[in-house]
Protein backbone atom coordinates (compact mmCIF):
# COMPACT_ATOMS: atom_id res chain seq x y z
CA UNK A 1 0.00 0.00 0.00
CA UNK A 2 2.62 2.62 0.93
CA UNK A 3 4.61 1.59 -2.09
CA UNK A 4 1.58 1.98 -4.26
CA UNK A 5 0.83 5.46 -3.01
CA UNK A 6 4.50 6.35 -3.55
CA UNK A 7 4.16 5.22 -7.11
CA UNK A 8 1.06 7.29 -7.56
CA UNK A 9 2.87 10.36 -6.28
CA UNK A 10 5.72 9.72 -8.66
CA UNK A 11 3.32 9.20 -11.54
CA UNK A 12 1.76 12.56 -10.73
CA UNK A 13 -1.58 10.97 -9.84
CA UNK A 14 -1.34 12.05 -6.26
CA UNK A 15 0.33 14.92 -4.52
CA UNK A 16 2.54 14.59 -1.49
CA UNK A 17 0.05 16.49 0.67
CA UNK A 18 -2.78 14.17 -0.35
CA UNK A 19 -1.17 11.23 1.37
CA UNK A 20 -2.54 12.33 4.68
CA UNK A 21 -5.95 13.50 3.58
CA UNK A 22 -7.76 10.88 5.62
CA UNK A 23 -5.75 11.83 8.68
CA UNK A 24 -6.32 15.52 8.13
CA UNK A 25 -10.10 15.12 7.84
CA UNK A 26 -10.15 12.91 10.88
CA UNK A 27 -8.16 15.41 12.94
CA UNK A 28 -10.38 18.28 11.93
CA UNK A 29 -13.54 16.47 12.99
CA UNK A 30 -15.06 17.08 16.38
CA UNK A 31 -14.97 14.02 18.58
CA UNK A 32 -13.19 10.87 17.45
CA UNK A 33 -14.25 10.43 13.84
CA UNK A 34 -13.32 6.71 13.47
CA UNK A 35 -13.03 7.43 9.76
CA UNK A 36 -10.01 5.13 9.52
CA UNK A 37 -12.23 2.25 10.62
CA UNK A 38 -14.55 2.34 7.60
CA UNK A 39 -14.84 -1.13 6.09
CA UNK A 40 -16.65 0.00 2.92
CA UNK A 41 -19.75 -2.02 3.73
CA UNK A 42 -22.12 0.49 2.11
CA UNK A 43 -24.64 0.53 4.94
CA UNK A 44 -24.44 4.33 5.01
CA UNK A 45 -25.41 4.87 1.38
CA UNK A 46 -28.14 2.27 1.67
CA UNK A 47 -29.62 4.10 4.66
CA UNK A 48 -29.38 7.58 3.26
CA UNK A 49 -32.62 9.34 2.27
CA UNK A 50 -30.68 11.83 0.17
CA UNK A 51 -28.29 9.42 -1.58
CA UNK A 52 -30.10 9.72 -4.91
CA UNK A 53 -29.11 13.38 -5.16
CA UNK A 54 -25.50 12.88 -4.06
CA UNK A 55 -22.52 12.79 -6.41
CA UNK A 56 -21.02 10.05 -4.23
CA UNK A 57 -22.45 7.90 -1.47
CA UNK A 58 -20.74 8.40 1.88
CA UNK A 59 -19.01 5.04 1.40
CA UNK A 60 -17.60 6.08 -1.94
CA UNK A 61 -16.56 9.44 -0.60
CA UNK A 62 -14.65 7.78 2.23
CA UNK A 63 -12.86 5.51 -0.24
CA UNK A 64 -11.88 8.61 -2.21
CA UNK A 65 -10.61 10.21 0.98
CA UNK A 66 -8.45 7.21 1.65
CA UNK A 67 -7.16 7.37 -1.90
CA UNK A 68 -6.16 10.97 -1.35
CA UNK A 69 -8.46 12.37 -4.01
CA UNK A 70 -8.57 15.75 -2.35
CA UNK A 71 -9.97 17.83 -5.13
CA UNK A 72 -12.68 15.34 -6.13
CA UNK A 73 -13.74 14.95 -2.52
CA UNK A 74 -13.92 18.67 -1.87
CA UNK A 75 -15.85 19.25 -5.08
CA UNK A 76 -18.42 16.55 -4.30
CA UNK A 77 -21.90 17.79 -3.50
CA UNK A 78 -22.36 14.97 -1.00
CA UNK A 79 -21.62 16.86 2.23
CA UNK A 80 -23.92 19.66 1.10
CA UNK A 81 -26.78 17.30 0.31
CA UNK A 82 -26.44 15.50 3.63
CA UNK A 83 -29.39 16.50 5.82
CA UNK A 84 -27.78 15.32 9.08
CA UNK A 85 -30.46 12.73 9.70
CA UNK A 86 -28.00 10.37 11.43
CA UNK A 87 -29.56 7.27 9.90
CA UNK A 88 -26.17 6.12 8.65
CA UNK A 89 -24.52 7.03 11.93
CA UNK A 90 -26.63 4.70 14.07
CA UNK A 91 -26.40 1.91 11.51
CA UNK A 92 -22.69 2.04 10.65
CA UNK A 93 -21.11 -1.15 12.02
CA UNK A 94 -17.87 0.74 12.62
CA UNK A 95 -19.47 3.70 14.37
CA UNK A 96 -17.92 6.20 12.01
CA UNK A 97 -19.13 9.72 12.88
CA UNK A 98 -20.36 10.15 9.33
CA UNK A 99 -22.49 13.28 9.78
CA UNK A 100 -19.68 15.07 11.60
CA UNK A 101 -17.20 14.15 8.86
CA UNK A 102 -19.63 15.78 6.41
CA UNK A 103 -19.45 19.01 8.43
CA UNK A 104 -15.65 18.87 8.33
CA UNK A 105 -15.66 18.36 4.57
CA UNK A 106 -17.94 21.36 4.11
CA UNK A 107 -15.63 23.62 6.05
CA UNK A 108 -12.60 22.30 4.16
CA UNK A 109 -14.36 22.81 0.82
CA UNK A 110 -15.24 26.39 1.72
CA UNK A 111 -11.69 27.10 2.75
CA UNK A 112 -10.24 25.52 -0.37
CA UNK A 113 -12.86 27.36 -2.44
CA UNK A 114 -13.61 24.09 -4.17
CA UNK A 115 -17.28 23.63 -3.49
CA UNK A 116 -19.23 23.04 -6.61
CA UNK A 117 -22.71 23.85 -5.43
CA UNK A 118 -22.85 27.52 -4.70
CA UNK A 119 -26.17 27.91 -2.89
CA UNK A 120 -25.51 25.79 0.18
CA UNK A 121 -22.32 27.54 1.29
CA UNK A 122 -23.98 30.90 0.73
CA UNK A 123 -26.89 29.84 2.90
CA UNK A 124 -24.58 28.66 5.69
CA UNK A 125 -22.46 31.78 5.46
CA UNK A 126 -25.44 34.14 5.45
CA UNK A 127 -26.87 32.34 8.45
CA UNK A 128 -23.60 32.54 10.32
CA UNK A 129 -23.27 36.21 9.40
CA UNK A 130 -26.64 36.92 11.02
CA UNK A 131 -25.72 35.02 14.15
CA UNK A 132 -22.39 36.81 14.39
CA UNK A 133 -24.15 40.17 14.09
CA UNK A 134 -27.20 39.64 16.28
CA UNK A 135 -26.42 36.58 18.37
CA UNK A 136 -29.76 35.15 17.28
CA UNK A 137 -31.10 33.79 14.03
CA UNK A 138 -33.14 36.12 11.83
CA UNK A 139 -35.27 34.10 9.47
CA UNK A 140 -36.69 36.91 7.40
CA UNK A 141 -33.32 38.51 6.75
CA UNK A 142 -31.85 35.14 5.93
CA UNK A 143 -34.70 34.07 3.70
CA UNK A 144 -34.87 37.27 1.72
CA UNK A 145 -31.13 37.50 1.19
CA UNK A 146 -30.73 33.88 0.22
CA UNK A 147 -33.77 33.55 -2.01
CA UNK A 148 -33.24 36.84 -3.78
CA UNK A 149 -29.83 35.70 -4.76
CA UNK A 150 -30.46 32.08 -5.66
CA UNK A 151 -34.10 31.30 -6.04
CA UNK A 152 -35.81 34.38 -7.47
CA UNK A 153 -38.03 32.13 -9.53
CA UNK A 154 -39.14 30.33 -6.41
CA UNK A 155 -40.28 33.51 -4.72
CA UNK A 156 -43.70 33.83 -6.32
CA UNK A 157 -44.57 30.32 -5.14
CA UNK A 158 -43.29 31.21 -1.71
CA UNK A 159 -44.82 34.64 -1.34
CA UNK A 160 -48.12 33.36 0.11
CA UNK A 161 -46.15 31.31 2.60
CA UNK A 162 -43.99 34.28 3.60
CA UNK A 163 -47.09 36.40 3.89
CA UNK A 164 -48.84 33.75 5.99
CA UNK A 165 -45.82 33.48 8.28
CA UNK A 166 -45.70 37.25 8.76
CA UNK A 167 -49.43 37.76 9.35
CA UNK A 168 -49.53 34.86 11.78
CA UNK A 169 -46.72 36.47 13.69
CA UNK A 170 -44.31 33.66 12.93
CA UNK A 171 -41.71 35.75 11.14
CA UNK A 172 -40.64 38.87 13.04
CA UNK A 173 -39.71 41.75 10.78
CA UNK A 174 -36.77 42.84 12.88
CA UNK A 175 -33.96 40.76 14.35
CA UNK A 176 -33.55 40.25 18.07
CA UNK A 177 -30.18 41.02 19.48
CA UNK A 178 -28.55 39.55 22.54
CA UNK A 179 -27.37 41.88 25.30
CA UNK A 180 -23.75 40.87 25.51
CA UNK A 181 -22.86 40.95 21.87
CA UNK A 182 -19.35 42.19 22.66
CA UNK A 183 -18.76 39.14 24.81
CA UNK A 184 -19.94 36.80 22.06
CA UNK A 185 -17.81 38.62 19.50
CA UNK A 186 -14.73 38.33 21.72
CA UNK A 187 -15.33 34.59 22.11
CA UNK A 188 -15.77 34.06 18.39
CA UNK A 189 -12.74 36.15 17.57
CA UNK A 190 -10.54 34.07 19.86
CA UNK A 191 -12.14 30.89 18.50
CA UNK A 192 -11.39 31.85 14.93
CA UNK A 193 -7.82 32.61 15.83
CA UNK A 194 -7.51 29.20 17.48
CA UNK A 195 -9.03 27.55 14.45
CA UNK A 196 -6.42 29.02 12.16
CA UNK A 197 -3.47 28.32 14.40
CA UNK A 198 -4.33 24.74 15.30
Amino acid at each position, binding site marked *: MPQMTDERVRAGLMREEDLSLLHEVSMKT*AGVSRLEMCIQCGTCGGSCPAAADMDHTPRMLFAMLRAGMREEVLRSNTPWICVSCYHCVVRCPQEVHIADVMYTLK*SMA*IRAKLYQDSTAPHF*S*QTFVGMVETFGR*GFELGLASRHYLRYFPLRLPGM*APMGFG*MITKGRMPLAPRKIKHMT*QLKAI*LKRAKHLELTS
Partner: protein
Amino acid sequence: MNKYLLYPGCSLESSAKAYAESLNAILEPLDIQLEEIEDWNCCGATEYLGINLIPAYSLIARNLALAVKQMDGAHTLVAPCSACYLNLAKADHYMQERPALGTKVNEALAAGGLEYKPGTLDVRHLLDVLIYDVGLDAIKKKVTRPLSGLKVAPYMGCMLPRPDYKHRWSDHEHPTELEDLLRVLGADVIDYPLTTSCCGGHMTQIGPETAFELICRLVAGADERGAHLMATVCPMCQLNLDAYQGEMNGYFGTDYHMPILFFTQLMGLAFGKDPDELGIGTELVSSRQALMHIGVEVPAAPEPTARRKKEEGLPMPSRLLRNGHKHEKEAVR
Protein backbone atom coordinates in the same frame (compact mmCIF):
# COMPACT_ATOMS: atom_id res chain seq x y z
CA MET B 1 -41.79 21.87 41.95
CA ASN B 2 -39.04 20.67 39.66
CA LYS B 3 -36.77 23.33 38.31
CA TYR B 4 -35.08 23.05 34.94
CA LEU B 5 -32.96 25.42 32.93
CA LEU B 6 -34.41 26.28 29.56
CA TYR B 7 -32.65 26.94 26.28
CA PRO B 8 -35.60 28.05 24.12
CA GLY B 9 -33.74 28.54 20.83
CA CYS B 10 -34.46 31.11 18.13
CA SER B 11 -37.45 29.37 16.56
CA LEU B 12 -39.51 29.59 19.74
CA GLU B 13 -39.38 33.37 19.41
CA SER B 14 -40.47 33.30 15.79
CA SER B 15 -41.71 30.50 13.56
CA ALA B 16 -42.48 28.18 16.48
CA LYS B 17 -44.06 30.60 18.90
CA ALA B 18 -47.01 28.21 19.09
CA TYR B 19 -44.57 25.75 20.66
CA ALA B 20 -43.54 28.36 23.26
CA GLU B 21 -47.13 29.31 24.06
CA SER B 22 -48.35 25.75 24.40
CA LEU B 23 -45.34 24.83 26.50
CA ASN B 24 -46.10 27.71 28.85
CA ALA B 25 -49.69 26.58 29.13
CA ILE B 26 -48.83 23.08 30.31
CA LEU B 27 -46.08 23.91 32.80
CA GLU B 28 -48.35 24.69 35.67
CA PRO B 29 -50.56 21.59 35.44
CA LEU B 30 -47.42 19.48 35.27
CA ASP B 31 -45.76 21.30 38.15
CA ILE B 32 -42.51 22.09 36.39
CA GLN B 33 -40.60 25.32 36.35
CA LEU B 34 -38.39 26.33 33.45
CA GLU B 35 -35.85 29.07 33.99
CA GLU B 36 -34.64 30.61 30.76
CA ILE B 37 -30.89 31.04 30.35
CA GLU B 38 -30.06 34.73 30.49
CA ASP B 39 -28.86 36.19 27.21
CA TRP B 40 -28.57 32.84 25.40
CA ASN B 41 -27.42 32.96 21.78
CA CYS B 42 -28.29 30.99 18.67
CA CYS B 43 -26.86 27.44 18.64
CA GLY B 44 -25.80 27.78 14.99
CA ALA B 45 -28.40 25.25 13.81
CA THR B 46 -26.91 22.90 11.22
CA GLU B 47 -25.04 25.76 9.53
CA TYR B 48 -22.16 26.89 11.73
CA LEU B 49 -20.70 23.41 12.15
CA GLY B 50 -20.09 23.26 8.41
CA ILE B 51 -18.01 26.42 8.39
CA ASN B 52 -15.61 26.46 11.31
CA LEU B 53 -15.16 23.91 14.00
CA ILE B 54 -13.93 25.80 17.04
CA PRO B 55 -16.11 28.89 16.56
CA ALA B 56 -19.13 26.63 16.06
CA TYR B 57 -18.50 24.75 19.29
CA SER B 58 -17.64 27.95 21.17
CA LEU B 59 -20.91 29.50 20.04
CA ILE B 60 -22.81 26.52 21.44
CA ALA B 61 -20.69 26.30 24.57
CA ARG B 62 -21.35 29.92 25.54
CA ASN B 63 -24.90 28.81 26.28
CA LEU B 64 -23.69 25.90 28.39
CA ALA B 65 -21.39 28.23 30.31
CA LEU B 66 -24.20 30.72 30.94
CA ALA B 67 -26.51 27.93 32.05
CA VAL B 68 -23.99 26.75 34.64
CA LYS B 69 -24.12 30.17 36.27
CA GLN B 70 -27.84 29.72 36.86
CA MET B 71 -27.72 26.10 38.04
CA ASP B 72 -28.47 26.63 41.71
CA GLY B 73 -29.41 23.02 42.32
CA ALA B 74 -30.85 22.33 38.90
CA HIS B 75 -28.61 20.55 36.46
CA THR B 76 -30.82 19.63 33.60
CA LEU B 77 -30.78 21.93 30.61
CA VAL B 78 -33.93 21.47 28.54
CA ALA B 79 -34.19 22.29 24.85
CA PRO B 80 -37.56 22.03 23.09
CA CYS B 81 -35.98 22.10 19.62
CA SER B 82 -34.37 18.88 18.41
CA ALA B 83 -31.63 20.70 16.49
CA CYS B 84 -30.71 22.89 19.49
CA TYR B 85 -30.87 19.85 21.73
CA LEU B 86 -28.49 17.93 19.53
CA ASN B 87 -26.04 20.83 19.22
CA LEU B 88 -25.93 21.42 22.96
CA ALA B 89 -25.64 17.68 23.68
CA LYS B 90 -23.02 17.29 20.98
CA ALA B 91 -20.82 20.07 22.34
CA ASP B 92 -20.99 18.62 25.83
CA HIS B 93 -20.25 15.13 24.49
CA TYR B 94 -17.40 15.95 22.11
CA MET B 95 -15.70 18.29 24.57
CA GLN B 96 -15.37 15.18 26.74
CA GLU B 97 -14.58 12.70 23.99
CA ARG B 98 -11.88 14.93 22.55
CA PRO B 99 -10.28 16.84 25.43
CA ALA B 100 -8.23 18.91 22.96
CA LEU B 101 -11.50 20.34 21.64
CA GLY B 102 -12.66 21.03 25.19
CA THR B 103 -9.44 22.91 25.94
CA LYS B 104 -9.67 25.07 22.84
CA VAL B 105 -13.33 25.88 23.34
CA ASN B 106 -12.55 26.91 26.88
CA GLU B 107 -9.70 29.10 25.67
CA ALA B 108 -12.21 30.86 23.41
CA LEU B 109 -14.81 31.14 26.17
CA ALA B 110 -12.19 32.69 28.43
CA ALA B 111 -12.07 35.66 26.06
CA GLY B 112 -15.60 36.37 27.27
CA GLY B 113 -14.85 35.54 30.91
CA LEU B 114 -16.68 32.20 30.73
CA GLU B 115 -15.85 28.53 31.09
CA TYR B 116 -17.61 25.21 30.78
CA LYS B 117 -16.51 21.90 32.22
CA PRO B 118 -18.04 19.20 30.03
CA GLY B 119 -20.39 16.89 31.85
CA THR B 120 -21.56 19.56 34.29
CA LEU B 121 -25.01 19.81 32.75
CA ASP B 122 -27.43 17.14 31.66
CA VAL B 123 -28.71 18.26 28.27
CA ARG B 124 -32.14 16.86 27.48
CA HIS B 125 -35.01 17.39 25.10
CA LEU B 126 -38.38 18.50 26.42
CA LEU B 127 -40.12 15.26 25.39
CA ASP B 128 -37.55 13.26 27.35
CA VAL B 129 -38.15 15.32 30.50
CA LEU B 130 -41.93 15.11 30.21
CA ILE B 131 -41.91 11.35 29.70
CA TYR B 132 -39.13 10.24 32.00
CA ASP B 133 -39.27 12.86 34.79
CA VAL B 134 -42.87 14.00 34.93
CA GLY B 135 -44.07 10.58 33.79
CA LEU B 136 -46.98 9.26 31.80
CA ASP B 137 -49.06 8.58 34.93
CA ALA B 138 -48.86 12.18 36.10
CA ILE B 139 -49.68 13.39 32.61
CA LYS B 140 -52.66 11.05 32.39
CA LYS B 141 -54.08 12.48 35.61
CA LYS B 142 -54.31 15.92 34.04
CA VAL B 143 -56.29 14.82 31.01
CA THR B 144 -59.77 16.32 31.11
CA ARG B 145 -60.53 16.30 27.40
CA PRO B 146 -59.27 13.01 25.96
CA LEU B 147 -58.32 13.24 22.32
CA SER B 148 -60.36 10.16 21.42
CA GLY B 149 -61.35 10.01 17.79
CA LEU B 150 -58.41 12.14 16.72
CA LYS B 151 -56.09 10.14 14.51
CA VAL B 152 -52.55 11.31 15.07
CA ALA B 153 -49.33 10.34 13.28
CA PRO B 154 -46.47 10.51 15.84
CA TYR B 155 -43.51 12.18 14.13
CA MET B 156 -40.24 12.22 16.08
CA GLY B 157 -37.85 13.34 13.35
CA CYS B 158 -34.15 12.52 13.21
CA MET B 159 -32.13 14.60 15.60
CA LEU B 160 -33.94 13.58 18.73
CA PRO B 161 -33.55 9.79 18.68
CA ARG B 162 -30.21 9.93 16.81
CA PRO B 163 -27.31 9.81 17.43
CA ASP B 164 -28.49 9.61 21.05
CA TYR B 165 -25.14 9.89 22.85
CA LYS B 166 -26.65 9.06 26.24
CA HIS B 167 -28.91 6.19 25.18
CA ARG B 168 -32.09 7.83 26.36
CA TRP B 169 -34.54 6.53 23.80
CA SER B 170 -36.18 3.15 23.39
CA ASP B 171 -34.93 2.84 19.80
CA HIS B 172 -33.03 4.90 17.25
CA GLU B 173 -35.38 4.25 14.37
CA HIS B 174 -38.68 3.25 15.90
CA PRO B 175 -38.84 4.83 19.33
CA THR B 176 -42.23 4.58 21.01
CA GLU B 177 -42.07 7.49 23.48
CA LEU B 178 -44.10 9.98 21.47
CA GLU B 179 -46.81 7.49 20.65
CA ASP B 180 -46.99 6.39 24.28
CA LEU B 181 -47.55 9.99 25.28
CA LEU B 182 -50.19 10.60 22.64
CA ARG B 183 -51.99 7.43 23.72
CA VAL B 184 -52.08 8.65 27.30
CA LEU B 185 -53.77 11.80 25.98
CA GLY B 186 -56.44 9.54 24.53
CA ALA B 187 -55.50 10.05 20.89
CA ASP B 188 -56.01 7.39 18.29
CA VAL B 189 -52.35 6.90 17.37
CA ILE B 190 -51.81 5.51 13.90
CA ASP B 191 -49.04 3.14 13.00
CA TYR B 192 -46.43 5.43 11.45
CA PRO B 193 -43.24 3.66 10.42
CA LEU B 194 -41.79 6.92 9.08
CA THR B 195 -41.65 8.40 12.56
CA THR B 196 -37.90 9.10 12.45
CA SER B 197 -37.51 9.81 8.76
CA CYS B 198 -36.03 13.14 7.83
CA CYS B 199 -38.08 16.31 7.22
CA GLY B 200 -35.42 17.66 4.86
CA GLY B 201 -33.66 19.88 7.40
CA HIS B 202 -32.15 22.92 5.76
CA MET B 203 -32.68 21.48 2.29
CA THR B 204 -35.93 23.45 1.98
CA GLN B 205 -33.61 26.47 1.75
CA ILE B 206 -30.85 25.17 -0.44
CA GLY B 207 -32.01 22.16 -2.44
CA PRO B 208 -35.79 22.32 -2.47
CA GLU B 209 -36.25 19.29 -4.75
CA THR B 210 -34.52 17.01 -2.27
CA ALA B 211 -36.60 18.48 0.54
CA PHE B 212 -39.92 18.22 -1.30
CA GLU B 213 -39.33 14.48 -1.85
CA LEU B 214 -38.78 13.96 1.85
CA ILE B 215 -41.71 16.15 2.90
CA CYS B 216 -44.02 14.44 0.45
CA ARG B 217 -43.06 11.00 1.69
CA LEU B 218 -43.87 11.96 5.28
CA VAL B 219 -47.12 13.74 4.56
CA ALA B 220 -48.34 11.10 2.10
CA GLY B 221 -47.43 8.36 4.58
CA ALA B 222 -49.53 9.96 7.30
CA ASP B 223 -52.38 10.69 4.90
CA GLU B 224 -52.50 7.13 3.52
CA ARG B 225 -52.75 5.75 7.02
CA GLY B 226 -55.69 7.97 7.78
CA ALA B 227 -54.07 10.53 10.09
CA HIS B 228 -56.05 13.71 10.78
CA LEU B 229 -52.86 15.47 11.78
CA MET B 230 -49.21 14.90 12.61
CA ALA B 231 -47.65 15.60 16.00
CA THR B 232 -44.11 16.96 15.99
CA VAL B 233 -41.45 17.63 18.62
CA CYS B 234 -39.24 20.04 16.68
CA PRO B 235 -39.66 23.54 15.20
CA MET B 236 -37.63 22.70 12.11
CA CYS B 237 -39.81 19.66 11.35
CA GLN B 238 -42.93 21.74 11.95
CA LEU B 239 -41.71 24.53 9.68
CA ASN B 240 -40.71 22.22 6.84
CA LEU B 241 -43.85 20.12 6.90
CA ASP B 242 -46.30 22.97 7.53
CA ALA B 243 -44.93 26.02 5.77
CA TYR B 244 -43.54 24.19 2.75
CA GLN B 245 -46.44 21.79 2.30
CA GLY B 246 -48.12 24.18 -0.14
CA GLU B 247 -45.01 24.61 -2.23
CA MET B 248 -44.44 20.84 -2.14
CA ASN B 249 -48.01 20.29 -3.35
CA GLY B 250 -47.35 22.72 -6.18
CA TYR B 251 -44.16 20.89 -7.11
CA PHE B 252 -45.77 17.44 -7.31
CA GLY B 253 -49.26 18.53 -8.32
CA THR B 254 -50.62 16.89 -5.16
CA ASP B 255 -53.33 18.13 -2.85
CA TYR B 256 -52.33 17.17 0.67
CA HIS B 257 -53.73 19.02 3.61
CA MET B 258 -52.00 17.61 6.65
CA PRO B 259 -51.95 19.85 9.72
CA ILE B 260 -48.75 19.72 11.78
CA LEU B 261 -49.09 20.50 15.49
CA PHE B 262 -46.56 20.44 18.30
CA PHE B 263 -47.11 17.67 20.83
CA THR B 264 -47.40 20.34 23.52
CA GLN B 265 -50.41 21.81 21.70
CA LEU B 266 -52.08 18.41 21.85
CA MET B 267 -51.20 18.11 25.53
CA GLY B 268 -52.78 21.51 26.16
CA LEU B 269 -55.95 20.49 24.35
CA ALA B 270 -56.13 17.26 26.35
CA PHE B 271 -55.69 19.28 29.55
CA GLY B 272 -58.77 21.29 28.55
CA LYS B 273 -56.98 24.47 27.50
CA ASP B 274 -58.38 26.88 24.96
CA PRO B 275 -56.97 26.58 21.42
CA ASP B 276 -55.91 30.23 21.37
CA GLU B 277 -53.84 29.78 24.53
CA LEU B 278 -51.94 27.12 22.62
CA GLY B 279 -51.08 28.99 19.45
CA ILE B 280 -53.53 26.89 17.47
CA GLY B 281 -54.41 28.71 14.28
CA THR B 282 -50.87 29.88 13.60
CA GLU B 283 -50.14 26.80 11.51
CA LEU B 284 -50.36 27.47 7.78
CA VAL B 285 -52.15 24.20 7.07
CA SER B 286 -55.14 24.72 9.30
CA SER B 287 -55.96 22.12 11.95
CA ARG B 288 -59.53 23.39 12.26
CA GLN B 289 -61.21 20.45 10.53
CA ALA B 290 -59.03 17.90 12.27
CA LEU B 291 -59.83 19.27 15.71
CA MET B 292 -63.55 19.00 15.07
CA HIS B 293 -63.05 15.28 15.67
CA ILE B 294 -62.55 16.06 19.35
CA GLY B 295 -65.23 18.72 19.44
CA VAL B 296 -62.79 21.61 19.59
CA GLU B 297 -64.00 24.70 17.77
CA VAL B 298 -61.20 26.80 16.37
CA PRO B 299 -62.50 30.15 15.18
CA ALA B 300 -62.06 30.32 11.41
CA ALA B 301 -59.08 32.56 10.78
CA PRO B 302 -59.65 35.14 8.10
CA GLU B 303 -57.85 33.40 5.27
CA PRO B 304 -54.95 35.77 4.73
CA THR B 305 -54.13 34.42 1.30
CA ALA B 306 -57.64 34.73 -0.12
CA ARG B 307 -57.47 38.40 -1.01
CA ARG B 308 -53.76 38.45 -1.33
CA LYS B 309 -52.09 40.74 -3.73
CA LYS B 310 -48.84 39.50 -5.14
CA GLU B 311 -46.84 42.39 -3.71
CA GLU B 312 -47.70 41.41 -0.16
CA GLY B 313 -45.07 38.67 0.13
CA LEU B 314 -41.56 39.03 1.42
CA PRO B 315 -40.13 42.49 0.84
CA MET B 316 -38.65 42.11 -2.57
CA PRO B 317 -38.29 43.87 -5.88
CA SER B 318 -41.55 43.52 -7.76
CA ARG B 319 -39.76 42.46 -10.92
CA LEU B 320 -39.14 39.10 -9.28
CA LEU B 321 -42.79 38.51 -8.68
CA ARG B 322 -43.87 38.50 -12.24
CA ASN B 323 -43.65 35.06 -13.70
CA GLY B 324 -44.77 32.78 -10.94
CA HIS B 325 -48.41 32.21 -11.71
CA LYS B 326 -47.74 28.55 -12.24
CA HIS B 327 -47.04 27.72 -8.61
CA GLU B 328 -49.32 30.26 -7.12
CA LYS B 329 -52.56 28.35 -7.08
CA GLU B 330 -51.11 25.36 -5.28
CA ALA B 331 -49.10 27.34 -2.83
CA VAL B 332 -52.04 29.31 -1.49
CA ARG B 333 -53.59 26.34 0.19
